[in-house]
């Protein structure tokens, strides 16, 4: 699908050399990208080879119903080389947030790319498309976003849906979805679509998704609902450094209590880590500085479908239609907190191990709760 583009465009490595970056810088960049994509050490060479030989890729980045947090997250991407090189090296031919041109000149730049690189450019979409009232709830240059999307998608070789807005509709599609905010895959059916959900996605996940395409000339492997496996195959709960407290039945009961100061598990104050697939626990945010749970607030599942309607943020999951383990958490929590005797504590751990197995089983069998599991 990703055939060779005209040779006149320079390779990444050539561009890097032109920009004064050394081979060492280049290899550092490749190593980082390989690491983000979950490759083994040997994968670094593959990344380097690909960036040395693949031509530049034209990119059109559209903005519809969004808040620009995805663009902002993209420019937070941690290595300078990403901000510096990816931003202009992908030949970002249209993005309303950063481009110098406005009005007709901006539209002209987009149309030039659509024509000259038909079938060759990647279309990035930030935001959902309102389909209510014939699309009048989002107008750009006098056109509806619906028409603009169809026009731009026609010549795209693939579409990247940045963030939850484009991937699943996000906040404006929460009930009652008054503008009929619609994610991209429900409108465009005949193109490969990569969803990079999150509100916003982590900056390095965005950069990593683009680099994957450049490196391997293919779309990244996607999970069942179209997300790159490299970044969305692990539950936040499974990659959380507070997980041992969960397993040991040690929970924050209310914010800023003694347990919060000890960094215990946030499950009982609403953490949705057990049902959220994202890279926050592994990569963390803003160059690995922290992530929501590390800073004391539960995950609220911002990369999951319909997360705004999946129950209040501070309600523990069980009461919000999640896993039926809250009774256990209470009991275990009390036991674990109230005793020092090793024997009883060990009992708590065993209880939690059993509970953990049940969770795995619930997920494997697609059940909503322990209750449902036990019914079978």
């Amino acid at each position, binding site marked *: 699908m990703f055939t060779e583009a005209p040779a006149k465009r320079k390779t990444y490595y050539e561009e890097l050399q032109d920009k004064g970056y050394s081979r060492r810088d280049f290899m550092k960049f490749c190593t980082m990208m390989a690491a983000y994509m979950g490759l083994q050490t040997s994968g670094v060479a593959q990344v380097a080879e690909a960036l040395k030989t693949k031509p530049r890729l034209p990119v059109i980045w559209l903005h519809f119903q969004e808040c620009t947090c995805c663009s902002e997250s993209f420019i937070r991407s941690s290595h300078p080389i990403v901000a510096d090189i990816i931003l202009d090296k992908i030949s970002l031919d249209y993005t309303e*947030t950063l481009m110098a041109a*406005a009005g007709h000149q901006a539209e002209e730049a987009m149309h030039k790319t659509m024509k000259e690189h038909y079938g060759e450019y990647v279309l990035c979409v930030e935001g959902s498309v309102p389909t209510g009232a014939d699309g009048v709830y989002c107008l750009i240059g006098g056109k509806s976003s619906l028409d603009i999307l169809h026009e731009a998608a026609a010549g795209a070789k693939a579409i990247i849906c940045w963030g939850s807005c484009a991937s699943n509709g996000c906040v404006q599609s929460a009930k009652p979805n008054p*503008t009929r905010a619609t994610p991209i895959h429900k409108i465009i059916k005949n193109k490969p679509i990569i969803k990079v959900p999150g509100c*916003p996605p982590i900056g390095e996940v965005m950069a990593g998704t683009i680099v994957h395409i450049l490196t391997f000339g293919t779309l990244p492997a996607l999970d069942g609902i179209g997300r790159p496996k490299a970044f969305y195959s692990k539950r936040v709960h499974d990659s959380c450094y507070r997980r041992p407290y969960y397993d040991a039945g040690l929970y924050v009961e209310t*914010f800023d209590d003694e347990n919060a100061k000890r960094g215990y598990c946030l499950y009982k104050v609403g953490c949705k880590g057990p049902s959220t697939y994202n890279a926050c626990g592994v990569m963390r945010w803003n160059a690995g500085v922290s992530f929501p749970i590390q800073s004391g*607030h539960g995950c609220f599942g911002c990369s999951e479908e319909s997360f705004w309607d999946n129950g209040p*943020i501070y309600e523990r999951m069980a009461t919000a239609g999640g896993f039926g383990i809250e009774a256990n958490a209470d009991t275990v929590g009390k036991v674990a907190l109230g005793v020092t005797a090793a024997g009883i504590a060990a009992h708590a751990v065993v209880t939690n191990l059993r509970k953990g197995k049940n969770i795995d089983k619930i997920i494997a069998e697609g059940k909503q709760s322990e209750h449902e599991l036990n019914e079978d």
Partner: protein
Amino acid sequence: MTRIVVDPITRIEGHLRIEAEIKNGKIEEAYSSGTMVRLIEEILRGRDPRDAWAFVGRVCGVCTTVHSLASIRAVEDALDIHVPPNAELVRNIMFCAQNVQDHVIHFYHLHALDWVDIVSALKADPKKTSEIAQSISNWPKSSPGYFSDLQKRLIKFVESGQLGIFANGYWGHPAYKLPAEINLIGVAHYLEALEWQKEIAKVHTIFGGKNPHPNFLVGGMACAIAIDDSSGLNAERLALVGKLLRDAKTFVEQVYIPDLLAIAPYYLDWGAIGGGLGNFMAYGDLSTSGYRDVANYKFPAGVILDKDLSKVHEVDLRSDNEVEEYITNSWYEYAGGNDVGLHPWKGETKLKYTGPKPPFDFLNTEDKYSYLKTPRWKGHAVEVGPLARMLVGYASGRPDFKEVVDGALKALNVPATALFSTLGRTAARGLEAQLVAGWGLEFYDQLLANIRNGDTRMAATDKFRPETWPKKSMGVGHTEAPRGALAHWIVIEDQKIANYQLVVPSTWNASPRDKEGKSSAYEAALKDTPVHDVNQPLEILRTVHSFDPCLACAVHLYDEEGKHVNQVKVL
């Protein structure tokens, strides 16, 4: 008469369209239209008020945090929750980090290309560039070699023929006045600012777990202080905050302000263009002794009318005849007719698009022409934002405001009247960043002192559970967003949001005309702006960008049925 359209206005947040009538090389009439709507207020109805900050935070990812802050304050006001001092300080520090980051991004990445000609920088003499850079600042990246390398990269970039985000700019337009060397400094700092902005954002990551969209908490903050634990705010975490805040202050003092003062002298004619309304409003923020202690705000509140700096009028968000919104020229309808103004607590509105069917060339500006409503303060159109804040501070006699404002006027050798202009607006933003960068460190020192004194409280949770709430309550929360005065109003009934409303900075500035045909700030400022070439309306971008538009914020909708809001009494 020529009518021109600039849509999309780029280098802003959101979707903005400007239509302008041009006669004899000047704008005779301008029309500002917000063209995207999401109706987040309607989505909030019936939800848990403690969650509102997360929903409204998603109003905007550029000025991320400001809506969340206004929201938790509105809920805390309604439920009479008093936040511990540490949480107030952390919120203030996050405010300062956001304000400075936002202003720097605006200046370099959203506004600079209106003044800095990238292509002209190709002709700069690197040695001369270095001399200029070193004469205006101690910033270390200033050697001839540094600028020479940068220029080589730039030349190769331009020669590649693929200009990416710089394609199709108005390069070479006669309104660009900077010498090539200053253009090259501008390009260098464009790139450096892009690197720096992701650093200061880490202050939010430490306290709120991520940026954009860090987490907040009704009652305080979720980041517990635990100086002897690796999972809380300890010496390492706080040291990182301190470093980032000091680096921010250095960046503003050694890069942003010197650049501003180096560029401004070439554009002093813009000190007499784009003045606009002459009415300014600020709600104030950044208390040194708690949000409720208005007297100790770093940013004082008030309204200035007709450029009269001798009088600062008081503003009351709870009064039902001060802040009102009109829909005469907005795509909404009121049950009481097209011309009534309603206080946010009494709003009863319904979306109704009556514009042309897309695709279209022009809006019918004789009729409704925007998704933005038109807010008024006691009937006055007012401008909000950094210029308004600086003027209110100045007129209130605050020494720190006077010092930076008088200092800049003296450095540029311009009269105080130059403040009321496109240039004044852009300069005020830089001066504000300078003040705020300093205040951030003051709040940081206070936070450390508090912890040293043994106060480690970060959240008041006694009223966190909905069972503890009254059957019905109302609140208002405000802040000063980078783009200006922001307030949220909430009604809580039976533990749920019964009504939620925002009146945001870009709605004040970018809204369409009111029932009397009076323009809001953008339209007023664009009037009489010269346009050298109607096909390259660079001048329109300069004035519009001087406001730092944020359109996703500006567009919102009240309760569609309006059934709860009529019951609301003013507190």
